[in-house]
């Protein structure tokens, strides 16, 4: 029985270090290769020894596919390809290919230069890793090899985010990566056609949330920023350089413009301008409105948002600062946070999800005292606000995607176990399909039951379709007789006559005959006439013929009537049919046994 196996090495009942192995039709594919923000030890990367204990990655994997540039989806890529060792193709979209190395380099710098870790991948390794990348275009069918094909769909989540369909023969799997089912200020909504995959592997970050309207969230956000700025406070918004940052920049920019506000807005790190440049060049990946107007006004040229300098953090007066990274686990955002945390006039707004172990996660859980490196503690007096702006599908969105793709099975990753449990029940109830949620290292096996493709001779097909009337009538299924010839790995279905001819065989006919006794006080020919009339009305869709040689013929079935001179009223009806018409023949004999209508 053909089967598909799915094993998460990361993101199984967890958010972080997404890495999912899929075995389908004899091919092995790695989906994403991310790092975990919550750990600083070995657990930060997926456990590749799962594969390497049996040999090299390159021998095992047919390809690696990266869904988008967030580090929890691509952060382990140079480690995997250059340090563990993988030389096969790595697929990602153009924007991901452009932006991913920059974030990797950033990550490397923070880890190696700031934290002083050794045994980490180098800048050269990032470059070598990127040389193995093959760019993917949306909807393009990429033939990885003769049998394995992949296709990318728009996922919305961040610039260049993609969902991928993996197909071998008639079996297929769709992996969503992270996606968003509602268009926002700069990206469109995820979309997929009714591709009916055997398994749909979906993220489930917001498995239990149904988010209120986006407009409310935006209004709330603007109100909070505005109030804090009005009372002279500072607002820190930890973000990742690319993604939500641009969304919130567009939001604040338009608000500042409309309200004519003067407080400065800053964007930290040198990435700003570069990041916005990517958005300008990959404008075809943004939403329709931005694409349509970009010649007149490019939404990514900001008037109110300036580059941040470290020294500005100590400036008096109100300001808004976007700083990286988004989970307050390192870098500039953490640096600024430490400076501002002691003042209750200030505010930090967490616009996205924070994984366990990060400062972001701790303060969101209401922790008021933080232990910092070197045993010092930090009092958190500033206001902490959480506002979900991360562009993940919520429960409603996930259900919507299932409706779009119509999968035969569902598999959840990239979420918390408890929330997954809830969604799993919901999916199984609503769609009546199996839903799986394997933990890391646990394998889910799904048995597929694919059809067998066969070449049918056009003559046979046309003959059959013609018999069914001008249009094939699905309401009245017809039995078709053919001969399947298997030769040199090809399967051909031809008419029995053609098969006999081709194989040089002579035909043997197998006929059944049957006698039915019936009392009828008419002459033989009248009885036959009555049988003819009866069958003609009973079998409206069949050709019933009354031949001059005193026979009635229905398809291959021959009907005759005889009687002995002794008992002229006891008629013996002779029925004879070929093997192929066994069904009709036995039906007719049963029918006639019941007698003729008076």
């Amino acid at each position, binding site marked *: 029985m053909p089967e598909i196996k799915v094993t998460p090495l990361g993101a199984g009942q967890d958010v972080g270090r997404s890495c999912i192995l899929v075995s389908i039709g004899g091919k092995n594919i790695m989906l994403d290769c991310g790092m975990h923000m919550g750990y600083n030890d070995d657990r930060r990367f997926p456990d590749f020894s799962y594969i390497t204990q049996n040999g090299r990655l390159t021998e095992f994997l047919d390809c690696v596919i990266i869904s988008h540039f967030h580090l929890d989806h691509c952060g382990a890529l140079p480690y995997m390809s250059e340090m563990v060792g993988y030389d096969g193709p790595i697929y990602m979209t153009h924007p991901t290919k452009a932006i991913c190395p920059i974030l990797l380099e950033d990550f490397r710098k923070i880890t190696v230069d700031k934290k002083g870790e050794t045994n980490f991948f180098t800048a050269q390794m990032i470059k070598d890793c990127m040389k193995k990348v093959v760019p993917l275009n949306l909807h393009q069918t990429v033939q990885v090899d003769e049998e394995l094909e992949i296709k990318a769909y728009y996922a919305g989540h961040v610039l260049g985010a993609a969902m991928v369909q993996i197909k071998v023969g008639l079996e297929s799997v769709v992996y969503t990566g992270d996606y968003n089912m509602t268009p926002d200020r700069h990206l469109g909504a995820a979309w997929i056609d009714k591709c009916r995959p055997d398994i749909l592997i979906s993220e489930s970050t917001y498995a239990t949330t149904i988010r209120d309207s986006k407009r409310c969230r935006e209004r709330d956000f603007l109100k909070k920023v505005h109030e804090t700025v009005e009372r002279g406070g500072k607002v820190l918004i930890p973000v990742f350089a690319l993604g939500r940052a641009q969304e919130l920049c567009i939001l604040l920019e338009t608000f500042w413009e409309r309200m004519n506000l003067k407080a400065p807005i800053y964007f930290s790190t040198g990435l700003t301008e570069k990041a916005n440049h990517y958005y300008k060049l990959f404008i075809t990946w943004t939403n329709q409105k931005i694409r349509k107007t970009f010649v007149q006004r490019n939404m990514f040229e900001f008037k109110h948002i300036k580059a941040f300098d470290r020294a500005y953090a100590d400036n008096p007066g109100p300001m808004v600062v976007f700083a990286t990274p988004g989970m307050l686990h390192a870098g500039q955002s953490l640096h600024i946070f430490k400076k501002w945390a002691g003042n209750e006039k200030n505010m930090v707004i967490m616009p996205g999800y924070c994984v366990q172990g990060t400062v972001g996660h701790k303060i969101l859980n209401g922790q008021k005292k933080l232990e910092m490196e070197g045993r010092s503690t930090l009092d958190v007096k500033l206001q902490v606000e959480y506002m979900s702006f991360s562009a993940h599908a919520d429960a409603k969105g996930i259900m919507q995607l299932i409706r779009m793709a119509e999968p035969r099975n569902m598999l959840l990753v990239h979420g918390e176990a408890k929330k997954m449990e809830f969604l799993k029940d919901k999916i199984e109830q609503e769609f009546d399909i199996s839903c799986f949620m394997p933990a890391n290292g646990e394998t889910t096996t799904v048995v597929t039951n694919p059809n067998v493709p066969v070449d049918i001779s056009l003559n046979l097909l046309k003959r059959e379709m013609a018999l069914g009337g001008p249009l094939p009538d699905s309401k009245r299924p017809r039995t078709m007789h053919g001969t399947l010839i298997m030769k040199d790995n090809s399967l051909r279905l031809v008419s029995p006559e053609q098969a006999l001819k081709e194989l040089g065989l002579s035909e043997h006919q197998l006929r059944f005959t049957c006698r039915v006794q019936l009392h009828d006080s008419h002459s033989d020919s009248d009885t036959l006439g009555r049988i003819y009339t009866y069958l003609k009305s009973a079998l409206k869709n069949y050709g019933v013929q009354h031949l001059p040689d005193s026979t009635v013929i229905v398809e291959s079935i021959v009907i005759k009537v005889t009687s002995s001179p002794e008992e002229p009223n006891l008629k013996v009806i002779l029925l004879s049919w070929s093997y192929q018409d066994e069904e009709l023949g036995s039906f007719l004999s049963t029918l006639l046994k019941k007698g003729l*209508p008076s």
Partner: protein
Amino acid sequence: MKLYCLSGHPTLPCNVLRFKSTTIMLDCGLDITASLYFLPLPLVHSPRLSKLPGWVSKDGAVNLEKELKECSGRVFVDSQPEFCLPERELLDLSTIDVILISNYHCMMALPYITEHTGFTGTVYATEPTLQIGRLLMEELVAFMERVPKAHTATCWKNKDIQRLLPAPLKDAVDVCSWRRCYSMQEVNSALSKVQLVGYSQKVELFGAVQVSPLSSGYSLGSSNWIIQSHYEKVSYVSGSSLLTTHPQPMDQSSLKNSDVLILTGLTQIPTANPDGMLGEFCSNLSMTIRAGGNVLVPCYSSGVIYDLLECLYQFMDSANLGNTPFYFISPVANSSLEFSQIFAEWLCQNKQSKVYLPEPPFPHAELIQTNKLKHYPSIHGDFSSEFRQPCVVFTGHPSLRFGDVVHFMELWGKSSLNTIIFTEPDFSYLEALAPYQPLAMKCVYCPIDTRLNFHQVSKLLKEIQPLHVVCPEPYTQPPPAQPHRTDLMLELQHPPMAYRRCSVLGLPFRRRYERIHLLPELAKSLVLSEMKTGVSVATVSAVLHSKDNKHVLQVREFQNKPRPHASCHGTA
């Protein structure tokens, strides 16, 4: 399988393929050369063009002085320029299911096909093809609507009158089917029927046929198309290039194993080498500028102009042209320059890698930033106050019959210091210049046509080995002007099937098989018996379901006897 040929023009094709109950139109090119029979449309009042004498036949019997004007020793139609459309009578256009577009030059007749014909199908094109095609249509409409003509000349088209007219008017063919330009509303409506596709995307048509665009290397988003079922494969090759210019390189290997290959859009100037022409373009340009003259480059607003600008970008400093202003004037100049920068996925590797830096892929961004290249929607407005001479002007339309170029012809034509450099291969430059004669201006003909030449195409065909080749008739014989050049025609082992306008070709196909799926239960129930070594046979009795051109066989269900009509009579 049949091919209906609605256009005989080899580079502006329009063919319709009937294949497995689908009707597929391949391109709909618009032949704009018909506009050469018309007087130019001046943007600014031209005393010369407004005082032309009307035409009356020598014996005075035919008087068309309102419609025809004598200009530079020839007779032109004084009316809004018209275009020659694809044939519309050969088959019912409302039966067309889909239109496949190969590049933005080959879609200009789209509104004539999709509007007012009952067309209800879908048009497939890549995103750059759609966006740039839209710009070119917008430009065409703007050129026409900026200079409205009070009346339309129709009398001269009367067959009995036309044959009395002087050449070349009397030899113009199919004049009755010539049409004026469409409106913006029609353009929008036509383009709303376009569905975007990416290279190598597989699009299913009614479950019967699969179509897929492949990169053709000719222009941004340009494609060849594969039209195939499980057993038959037709390749449609249109406007392809093997030269390394800005677009993604041509995908050749996917064209292999075709049963039929329809070949159109080869180079129109097989004797000119594009690289040589580019060199000549640069040297003529700098010579004129150095002598204090102006250079006029009539061109389309997208395509080769990007390469010309890039070439000048590299060349201008070494040639001391650093201070010469370059002007690009077109209603869509800005959009065209902006759009060219956002299609990284569709560009050659070299340009793609620039976007990763991130830098704009084309250097014209830098030319604009440093004020070396300026673009204007028209000669009116800012341009008139900012314009400095000597300069280089890129503007349309290359037919010299409409657009801002008409003004520059009137302005600069009288001075021998100035030069006009023709780079577009679509129009005979002598014909284009006819209404402006006598000219003092220097004329240089540097046609740059990057499409496949005969040498390249025969090499390509050897490699991909299609069973049959279909091509426009002109490709099967040497050019009429050079009958001895047998190298300038297609020479194949099996002679190609040639078509001309209005041909209907039966394509040599014998379909013998169709794909059918056995449901797993049925497949399991089959008993194979080996008849000879390697040949096994099983008899199949199963129920056939056909839906949306997909066929499925499933197990007969005996408990549900298919005899619905039997119970209708009482039994004795």
